[in-house]
């Protein structure tokens, strides 16, 4: 067909090429039509999406998601085992077996829940707000579970509580409290380092500010406001105490920086 002597014009007038073009056009139309037909038959509307995939799995497959949940549950048991050993209250073989079985349960419960949700919600039309609302209402409890940590964590924590003896439970809660305190102290250092970029404090000033922040008691802070605790603590330091180790300009800058956090003061006690 593509010989050296043929020009474009000559090719266009060749009846063989006409036939080839017709075949090509018919084949193309048939492919497009069959594509449209299959969409109609199988209901593959491009606007319809798997709601569970979109809002729960967030792009992951069911298998990889399940794997990551099991990994997190396993990590929790390994950590617990270590804490108990360090605190001279090691887990008994029965306790460990029960917890390892619970790890498996996390995976299978998730699989079961996801299958049920998929059956209830299925595909959702993204152009239909009502359809989306209905789907979200069904998925809401599962989404809330995800917000509180890994899916199934709450149930797993209950199993841990039932499995441990009184002494072991106390040991675990002490260890967790210590970790939270460590975290809070580390965050205070980070906050002071950030404030320092603005205040240009000397070594002694930084140390004093850290000390004063850590002295401020906080008895109750909602989970979602934990991040604001160091700022609220700074706001609670009496101005006179700040003036004792910071110069006038620094105090003014610090208070201006902390002003937006005043709105959280009532909620953090």
């Amino acid at each position: 067909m593509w010989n050296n002597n043929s020009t474009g014009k000559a090719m266009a007038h060749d009846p063989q090429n006409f036939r080839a073009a017709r075949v090509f056009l018919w084949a193309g139309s048939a492919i497009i039509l069959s594509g449209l037909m299959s969409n109609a038959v199988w209901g593959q509307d491009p606007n319809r999406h798997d709601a569970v995939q979109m809002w729960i799995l967030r792009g992951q497959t069911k298998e990889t998601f399940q794997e990551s949940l099991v990994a997190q549950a396993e990590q929790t048991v390994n950590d617990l085992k270590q804490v108990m050993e360090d605190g001279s209250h090691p887990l008994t073989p029965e306790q460990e077996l029960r917890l390892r079985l619970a790890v498996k349960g996390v995976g299978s419960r998730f699989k079961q829940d996801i299958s049920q949700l998929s059956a209830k919600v299925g595909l959702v039309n993204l152009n239909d707000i009502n359809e989306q609302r209905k789907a979200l209402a069904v998925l809401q409890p599962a989404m809330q579970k995800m917000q509180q940590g890994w899916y199934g964590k709450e149930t797993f924590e209950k199993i841990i509580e039932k499995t441990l003896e009184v002494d072991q439970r106390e040991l675990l809660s002490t260890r967790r409290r210590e970790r939270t305190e460590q975290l809070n102290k580390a965050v205070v250092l980070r906050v002071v380092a950030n404030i320092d970029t603005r205040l240009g404090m000397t070594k002694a000033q930084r140390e004093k500010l850290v000390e004063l922040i850590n002295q401020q008691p906080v008895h109750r802070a909602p989970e979602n406001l934990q991040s604001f605790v160091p700022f609220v603590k700074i706001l609670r330091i009496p101005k006179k105490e700040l003036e004792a180790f910071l110069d006038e300009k620094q105090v003014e800058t610090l208070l201006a920086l902390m002003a937006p956090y005043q709105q959280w003061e009532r909620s953090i006690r």
Partner: protein
Amino acid sequence: MKNLFNKTSCLLSALLTLAPTGTAVAQAAFFPAPQADQVQDDILKTVRMRERDFLLRVCKLPEDKQKQVDAVGEEVLGALAEAPPVAQRNVIRMRGALHLDNGAGVRSQTEKLRKKLQDKYRELLDEEQKQLYNSELTAREEFNRNSRGECLIVLFNQRVSLKQHQIQPLKDALATWEGAESLQLSFYFQNGSSNYFPPIPAELYTKVLDADQLKVIRSFQQVFAQRDADVEQQFNW
């Protein structure tokens, strides 16, 4: 016809080759950094004032020396302003997706200014003052680096329970991660129940953690905290 076919196939193959970088290119083209040079100027002026105040706080200088400090500051800032504005934006790859780090240019300029100012200030100080100034600068750097390391170690410990021998090597490696500078990150650290994990380069911790711990880390949702000039200004004040 043959030429047309060749051209089309070339175009198609070029498109397919460039597809992975498409997101970043599109972002760069359609979302330019907002008034980057103005924001940058403001930040540099503020940094200059902060460095000046820090020096005067550490070393009590007489009035004539203070005037020299101001003159040196103006000079360094002026020299930096004459250089063309830096609108450099790094493209960061994270789990296959590309993100823009708009603050990279401002950060490098800020660092340059800080170093130049400190060098010039040292020239104005006597030996004793220089020693005091240097030790305060070192303490400031150390405090910053340690606080980054502490925060990240606690985060790792909370998420994957570190063993004693892992703590120091991990702390040293993580202290080099400049992403920890962002105040935004410490907000996320506080949320213990969250699945959030900052986008720390994996090479910093893969050699220290064991296979089980890495499996857990991979299961967390990595959130990219966008750092552009505005965010930089807002969170680093």
